[in-house]
């Protein structure tokens, strides 16, 4: 019961008028930043960090956590409405969110995303409250071999995502990983893959450049071509009755949502993994376990529920190693960590003893932020729906401009804008030939992590690949990954035999 008492103490602080106002303000701000293509929770938290000097430390961290939460909800909005992932964590949401919006079910997709995010957030905050210290120790057992195994698992789930053409899916993964290797080699520090000696390649290729190129410019070109016969973006109607209807419909996706929440939470806890692989794995898992896997990617509502519950759960989960061990689980928590250090709140095991009131106020504020973000999100859905009513010939150029400024903002280099255009055009040409491009975007996000962990593990084992199979945790994860790699191939083989017999 001690936990409950402490939580109540936390609520006492989190519900103070100033802190409550900060939660609502932070969530609203985060929602808008997350909904902008190109800007995600990392940008939001980083940009607004200095503004928190105006309030006391606890309020400041609560504010930043609320932005983080709001941005997690907001990422889904541009994924669904524009088909451009607002942040890497929302990449998987585009797969089914976009088809749903095109079919006139944007309201259902948005409400499901909000509902699933709420459930994911709540499940993980409850788990966080109950099991914080013991889970932190599990995360410590994760070395580079385990990290690499986890990456392999994430890649294995991509194969399931890519559709039937396995060589094209594998090609897409490989090219994403190669593009992630551009820039300075992380271990030796030597420059590599500097095409034409252009200085712009030294900072590597930001995943946003590829993501916005493919999902922004490529997608728009695709839509322009397919809408030339007069096909228009379908419109969605909206009303209070439909909100209630869709909220009731949430229970149909409850199983997927809960699974996504648990998976997201555990992946989120692991250092360096974070919300992106969590949401992708949840999507893959939902597809694999579904009775109707073929409907995924064509507008299955479970394809929205799974990644959205997982990315919110993971964002809470990734705060756990940050608070208990001082190891950030994601780039955003790394910045939060920086913010805490500025305020003299040194994260680590002692934090729970020395700054008990702060820790519990933060945990309690996560409950509040979760509720606030959902309410604000639901309130703004009509405005988001209105975007879809805009004629395509006005919406398209505005989206191009958004892509441009959104792609420029993170690195502030025009070189990246040119790359974005090239990726967009090439991606559009490849997409016409059924090359799945999502795996490439996911691979460029996970690439640096996968490479570092693989090389570190190989250095530890002096070149023996057995390190990935000998250690119990990494061995188990590798085993699951290999099964997932083989499964789709076996499925295609079986169906091709069945076709021959017919």
């Amino acid at each position, binding site marked *: 019961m001690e936990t409950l008492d402490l939580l109540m103490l936390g609520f006492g602080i989190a519900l103070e008028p100033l802190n409550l106002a900060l939660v609502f303000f932070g969530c609203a701000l985060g929602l808008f930043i997350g909904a902008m293509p190109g800007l995600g929770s990392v940008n939001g938290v980083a*940009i607004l960090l200095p503004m928190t000097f105006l309030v006391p430390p606890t309020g400041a961290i609560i504010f930043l956590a609320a932005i983080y939460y709001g941005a997690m909800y907001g990422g889904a909005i541009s994924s669904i409405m524009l088909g451009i992932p607002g942040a890497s964590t929302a990449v998987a949401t585009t797969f089914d969110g976009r088809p749903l919006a095109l079919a006139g079910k944007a309201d259902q997709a948005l409400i499901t995303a909000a509902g699933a995010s709420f459930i994911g957030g709540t499940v993980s905050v409850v788990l966080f409250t109950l099991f914080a210290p013991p889970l932190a120790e599990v995360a410590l057992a994760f070395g580079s071999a385990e990290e690499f195994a986890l990456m392999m698992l994430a890649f294995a789930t991509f194969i399931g995502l890519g559709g039937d053409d396995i060589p*094209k899916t594998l*090609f897409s993964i490989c090219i994403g990983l190669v593009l992630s290797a551009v820039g300075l080699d992380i271990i030796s520090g030597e420059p590599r893959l500097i095409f034409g000696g252009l200085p712009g390649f030294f900072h590597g290729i930001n995943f946003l450049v590829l993501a916005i190129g493919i999902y922004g410019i490529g997608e728009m070109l695709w839509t322009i071509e397919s809408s030339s016969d007069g096909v228009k973006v379908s419109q969605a109607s909206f009303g209070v009755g439909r909100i209630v209807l869709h909220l009731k419909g949430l229970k149909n996706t409850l199983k997927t949502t809960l699974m996504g929440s648990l998976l997201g939470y555990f992946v989120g806890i692991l250092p360096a993994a974070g919300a992106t692989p969590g949401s992708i794995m949840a999507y893959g898992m939902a597809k694999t376990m579904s009775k109707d896997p073929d409907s995924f990617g064509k507008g299955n509502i479970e394809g929205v529920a799974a990644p959205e519950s997982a990315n919110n759960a993971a964002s809470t989960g990734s705060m756990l190693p940050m608070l208990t061990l001082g190891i950030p689980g994601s780039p955003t928590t790394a910045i939060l960590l920086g913010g805490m250090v500025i305020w003299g709140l040194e994260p680590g095991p002692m934090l729970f003893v020395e700054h008990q009131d702060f820790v519990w106020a933060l945990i309690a504020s996560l409950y509040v932020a979760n509720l606030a973000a959902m309410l604000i999100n639901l309130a703004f859905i009509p405005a988001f729906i209105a975007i879809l009513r805009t004629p395509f*010939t006005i919406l398209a150029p505005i989206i*191009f401009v958004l892509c*441009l400024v959104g792609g420029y903002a993170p690195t502030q280099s*025009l070189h990246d804008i*040119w790359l974005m*255009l090239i990726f967009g055009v090439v991606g559009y040409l490849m997409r*016409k030939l059924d090359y799945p491009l999502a795996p490439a975007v996911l691979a460029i996000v996970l690439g640096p992590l996968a490479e570092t962990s693989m090389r570190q593990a190989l250095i530890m084992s002096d070149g023996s690949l057995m390190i990935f199979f000998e250690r119990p945790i990494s061995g188990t994860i590798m085993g699951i990954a290999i099964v997932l790699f083989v499964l789709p191939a076996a499925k295609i083989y079986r169906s091709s035999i069945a076709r021959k017999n017919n």
Partner: protein
Amino acid sequence: MRRAELVMALALGVLSAYLMVKSAELPIGWIPREGPGGGAFPFWLSAGMLVCCVFIVLRWVLRQSPVSRSAELYFNPAARGTVMIVIIALTLMIGSIHIIGIYFAIPLFLLYYVRVIGRHNWLLSLGVSISAPVISFFFFEIALHITLPKGYSEPLFYPLYDIFL
């Protein structure tokens, strides 16, 4: 469609080979006490890309993939012109950012797209083209302190900086 599939697979195969050569500029073998060389990761993945291309061509020969059986045209003839115009307009817009800056390139692009391609009336076209850069300016430069590229138009913004920053 069938020809496009082969051309794309061959082009990507050449790209893979080029990436292999480029990666090999760094050591790709095992370096004692340092682990795999810096070029190893991209080198073997590019090799993987090449193998995938071989399989794609193989499936093309066997007519296994749906696109290699398709008799449709690669470009929908009705849309080819519009797509090309949009790509050219985008290229010109990005190119002109270097010279006239983003706050002049954006309205020109929007005006062209909404008025000429979209055939909307002047009022709407001008409204969209003028409000977009104004909103961008306040959101990026004032609220987020992110400077967007202005090319030679930079001096025109000095008075605005004085007022808002």
